[in-house]
């Protein structure tokens, strides 16, 4: 079923969520674009051995 939450984009005011580099947040702010910065951090990274073991189990 199509998503009913689809947002308008072209020809509407931008409201941006920036996930990652702060430099892009600053660049949007300078242009007076409404932007929110996500405090993103990587999730736990599995080492290769664990990944191999897990893939065999699953």
């Amino acid at each position: 079923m199509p998503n009913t939450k689809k947002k308008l984009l072209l020809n509407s005011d931008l409201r941006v969520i920036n996930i990652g580099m702060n430099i892009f947040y600053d660049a949007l702010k300078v242009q007076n674009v409404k932007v929110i910065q996500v405090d993103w951090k990587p999730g736990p990274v599995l080492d290769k051995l664990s990944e191999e073991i897990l893939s065999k189990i699953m």
Partner: protein
Amino acid sequence: MGKPIPSADTYHNVLVKHNYYRDSLELLRLSDEIKRYPGIMEASLVMGTKTNKEILIKLGFPTDHIAKAESSDMIIAIRAKDEALLLSTIPKIEAILRGTGTGGEQTQDLDHSSTNDRHDLESILSSDKEINIALISVPGEHVKGLSFKLIDEGIHQQIFSDHVTMDDELEIKRYALKNRVLILGPGAGTSIINGKGIGFSNAVTTGSVAIVAAAGTGLQEVSTLLDHCGIGVRHGLGVGGNDPKEKIGGLMMSEAFKMLEECEDIDVINIVSKPPAASVKQNIIDHAAKYGKKKYVMTFIGGNASTENTKVKKVRSSTRRLPRHSNKIIIANTLTSSVFATAKHIANLNKSESSTDPIYVKIEDLQRIVMAERKRLRNEQKYLRALYTGGTFAYESQVILNGLAIRPLYSNAPLNKAQLLREATRSFKNSVIDLGEEEFTKGRAHPMIDPTIRKLRINEEASYDDVAVIVLDFVLGYGSNPDPVGSVIDEIRNAKLLASEAKRHLSVLAHVCGTRRDPQGYDRSLTILKDAGVLVLPTNAFAAIAAAGIVAKRPLDFREAYSVFIEGTHQGELT
């Protein structure tokens, strides 16, 4: 941490922090900050990727600690004038890192950005229903999960992250289309929506042109050159370099195209793409010819001149396969020729005052510059080295150099596989290097932000006796380095000095991609370059033609070069 090691009146130390991740931009900014401490001669904080380790070794740090680091480890490499200074700096860095570390207390804002309103994703998505686009620049392996979550919320996305597999890209885009969400990227650094730049973009005038680009710096070049001509861009949608490939099938290029078709305030749609799959190219042309309501200028860079043996005449003739009723479509050979074609459309509509004079170099002027440079070269100086931060410029130059029969030609991002450079880190004969390719960017900031790789490379190229010309691009705008020209100008001066000490003249050609309203200062950047003896051309295509003219074995036919690569466009009715 090892004991500080003295070497030639300096001390250095290399510290490896295992499984310790920080964003490459945060690390770059911290490195720059530490370099400004009194007595610190070099500071490099990087993730332990292959490229980063090679650079640290080139910067003179010992290999033993560096070699053991994994890509998930952070390396801190510091060189100082005295031991006490070095020993006191390391704990300061540790303190800063602890302050911004995972689960740590935020004691210091590393990059001094104004991001006081940082929030976690879940709380934003549940509380703010007005968000219509997400800009994503997290490491590639984390993109898919994030993207699906945002699609479920109906949020359009610009994904700057590289290192997302094509399988993941296809899954994301198919799911997005089902949910009527636009996905720009992965690898999309640049967009303009409603005149506002997202990611790397320039301060351009807003007007009646829209651009769909699968070539980020292509979008920047076209939008800034149009701005110099007095023509505005309302939307510029960067869909990512993989989108027009066979596997992805141009899914988002078509979607972006359809969205722009519905915009009443758009007169001309300009399509800029790195070499697309033949089927994707044909679909776009057919769609525009059949259903299009606008004027179209399409540039498939390298799509016309992708073989080593392609000569100018072949470039000319291979662009004429258009449907009969497609006189609203113009196919351009280069970014520059697409701008001239767009300007012509706009002039015909008589909607605004525009002139292409600011971006044009008369044939006789370019010829004069080239002949003067040729006379100053020694016999053994035969080759050009183009060191680009913008991938599209690397492609565009290859189209031009191939078309003008500059041989042999190699690249780390070749249009033709036979021209693949064996090692990206080592030029051979005529070489065009895209420093933004993934082999240079894994674990470090893009060269448009971090000039380190290009600085080292300029020094290296200048040391070879057979190099005649170095070609450079400088990309201004939001998101780029705060001073792209200033950050490498010492290396350019040193390169010219090194050559002159060896009784050689080294030509350095450049073009600056930017507008007069960009924060770095367009005119200021031009002045710095010219003062250092750099020949500055208004577009990359002019710079590439000039470089070809300087190294060509026989004097170049400039009229032919201009007719194909500057004015080279073909209308649909030619068929």
